C-alpha cells in the first residue's frame, strides 16, 4: 500500500517534467531548425513527418548522431559529463554547507552585529552573476596565487578524485557562493518563522535549553522546508556549471552545448537538453524520497 502510494506520487511528479514534454518543446524549436536543415540537405517531408520520425527513432533508443563527429549524441554527452556533474555536486554541497549554518546563526542571533554582517556579506555574493566570481577567483587563486590550475580538466580515471576536484573547485566555489546567500536568507527567515511557532514555545516551556530547541526541534522543521529548494538549486547550479565551463575552459557538457549551438549541431543540442531535463526529473524523485523521510505528514497530505 505504502509503496504504491510512493510510486503514484513519484509518477505524478514525473509527468510534468517528463522528457516527453521536453522533446515536444524542443521539437517545436527544431521544427524551424529542421526546416532549414531540410532545405540545406535536400530532405523531404513535412515538419510533422520529421517530428514523427524523430519520435519513432527515439522510441527505439536512437537519439541521433552528432553532425560534428558522427558519434551517437549520448556517447558524446557521457564522455563529457564527468566535470559537469562534479561541478554541480560540489557547488551544491558548498551552497548547503555554507548557507544553512549561516542562516541558522543569523536567526538564532537575530539582530546581533554578526547577523547584520553575515546577512549583508552573503548578499554581496548575489549581486554579480556567478561567472564574474569565476573570473575573479580565476585571477586571484589560479593566476596570482597559483593554488589551482588555470584551465582545463583532468579525468578522475587518470589523476584521481582529488586532482580532478582541484580542477573544478574554483568554478564550483563561484557557483556555490552565488547560491549560498539565497540559502542563508531563506534559512534565516524560515528559522525565524519556526522560532515564533507554538511548538517552539512548547519546547521552551518544557525546559529545553536553547541549543536543544534550535538544533533538535527547529532545525528539522527548517530543513524540511529547505529540501524543497534544493531541486531548484541543482538546476541553477547545473546552468552555472555550463557557463563556468566556458570561463575555465573545462570540456564538460556545457562547453559541448556551447559548441554544438554555435556549430548548429541540433541533434546534439536536443540530446543535451533532454539530458538536463532527465537530471531534473531524477533529482526531484530523489529529493521527494528525502522529503518524505524528513516529514511524516507528506504521505497523508
Amino acid at each position, binding site marked *: 500500500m505504502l509503496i504504491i502510494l510512493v510510486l503514484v506520487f513519484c509518477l505524478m511528479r514525473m509527468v510534468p517534467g517528463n522528457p516527453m514534454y521536453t522533446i515536444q518543446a524542443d521539437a517545436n524549436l527544431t521544427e524551424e531548425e529542421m526546416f532549414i536543415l531540410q532545405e540545406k540537405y535536400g530532405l523531404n517531408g513535412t515538419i510533422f513527418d520529421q517530428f514523427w520520425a524523430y519520435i519513432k527513432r527515439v522510441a527505439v533508443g536512437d537519439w541521433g548522431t552528432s553532425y560534428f563527429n558522427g558519434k551517437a549524441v549520448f556517447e558524446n554527452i557521457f564522455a563529457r559529463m564527468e566535470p559537469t556533474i562534479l561541478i554541480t555536486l560540489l557547488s551544491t554541497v558548498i551552497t548547503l554547507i555554507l548557507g544553512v549554518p549561516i542562516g541558522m546563526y543569523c536567526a538564532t542571533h537575530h539582530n546581533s552585529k554578526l547577523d547584520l554582517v553575515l546577512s549583508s556579506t552573503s548578499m554581496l555574493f548575489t549581486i554579480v552573476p556567478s561567472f564574474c566570481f569565476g573570473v575573479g577567483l580565476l585571477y586571484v587563486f589560479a593566476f596570482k596565487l597559483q593554488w589551482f590550475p588555470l584551465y582545463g580538466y583532468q579525468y578522475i580515471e587518470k589523476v584521481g578524485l582529488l586532482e580532478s576536484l582541484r580542477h573544478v573547485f574554483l568554478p564550483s566555489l563561484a557557483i556555490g557562493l552565488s547560491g549560498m546567500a539565497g540559502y542563508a536568507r531563506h534559512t534565516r527567515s524560515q528559522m525565524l518563522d519556526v522560532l515564533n*511557532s*507554538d*511548538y*517552539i*514555545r*512548547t*519546547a*521552551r*516551556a*518544557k*525546559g*529545553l*535549553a*536553547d541549543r536543544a530547541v534550535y538544533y533538535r*526541534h527547529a532545525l*528539522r*522543521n527548517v530543513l*524540511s522546508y529547505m529540501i524543497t529548494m534544493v531541486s531548484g538549486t541543482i538546476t541553477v547550479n547545473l546552468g552555472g556549471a555550463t557557463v563556468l565551463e566556458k570561463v575555465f575552459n573545462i570540456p564538460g557538457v556545457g562547453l559541448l552545448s556551447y559548441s554544438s549551438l554555435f556549430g548548429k549541431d541540433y541533434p546534439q543540442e536536443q540530446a543535451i537538453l533532454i539530458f538536463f531535463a532527465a537530471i531534473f526529473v531524477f533529482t526531484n524523485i530523489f529529493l521527494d524520497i528525502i522529503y518524505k523521510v*524528513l*516529514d*511524516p*505528514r507528506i504521505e*497523508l497530505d
Partner: protein
Amino acid sequence: MMENKEKVLSVKDLNLWFDGDFSSPQILNNVNFEVYKGETLGIAGESGCGKSVTSLSVLRLLKTPPARIQGTIEFQGENLLELPMSKMQKIRGNKIAMIFQEPMTSLNPLFKVGYQLEEVFRLHQGLSKEEAKKKAIEMLDAVRIPLPEQRAKEFPFQLSGGMRQRVMIAMALSCRPELLVADEPTTALDVTIQAQVLDLMRNLQKEFGTAIMFITHDLGVIREICDRVVIMYCGEIVETAKVEELFANPCHPYTNGLLSTLPQSGVKDRLPTIPGMVPPAGKFPSGCVFSPRCEHACEQCIANKPELYDVGNGHSVRCFRYQNTEVK
C-alpha cells in the same frame, strides 16, 4: 482558610511594557496575586486584557525586548525574573509547567508524540531512553488516552485536537509540577471535549496536588474548575475573590457586565453585552480603566485611579464605589 496554606507563587507589582518605535504601551500595570498550594486560580478577562501575557511572563517565555518587565514573581523563595536562564530552564516543565491555547500547533509536527513526552523525563529526571519511554506511556495512560503504546508512536497530525491537548497535559504533568499554568486550554476545543478536558484536569489536580493558574475568558469554565478568581481589565486586576463569593456578590461593574453576558438556562432574552470596546494597548484610560464603559462612572473615576479596596472575605475590588466599605 487560605491564609494557612502555603504560597506557591506570588506575583508582586508586575509591570510590563512593549517597546515600540513611537511609544511603549504599558500592557500590565501593578498586577499582584498569589497562587496557593493545591488550589486553582482563575484569571479571566476579555482578549487583550493582559492575561496571556501574565501567564507567559511567569515562565519568562516573552521575548525581551520588545517586552520589558518589572516587579517580582516569587516561586519557592526565588524571584523568577532574576534567575539566570539556565536555572529557569530547570524550573520550566519541571516545577512550573504550561499548557497552551492551540493544541493543533503546540506540538512539533515532525516528532513522534512519545518522543516529545520522553524528552521531559530525560531532561528533568535524567532517565534513560527505555525508562523515559515507559514513563511516557504511563503518562499517556494517565490522561486517559486509549492505546497509549500505539499513540506514542504516532505523529501529532494523526491525533485529534482533544487528544493533542491531552498529550500537552500529559507533558505538563510529567514531572508533577508545583504549578501548572494553563493558558486557555479549552478555548480551541469543542464543548464536549472541553468538558472532558476540564474533568481530566480536575481529577489530575486531586491526584497530583498541583496548583493551577487557569487563564480563560469564559466565566462558565471558571465556575466549574476554579477556587479563586482574578478578573483583569486593561492590564489591571479589577476584582479578585473566591469563586462562590464572586458569583454571589460581584462588585465591579465590569464583573457584573461579564456575568450578565453568561447564558442562563430558562432565560430566552437576547444576551446582554457590555457597551463599548476594550481600548487598544497604549490607549488605556488614565483614571479608572473601565470608566469609559461604566454606567456608574463619575468625574472622580475619570480623573483618578482607584485602589483595590478590600470588601472582606478575601474579596477586593478596584472601584471607588467600594472605597468606604467597612471590612467585616
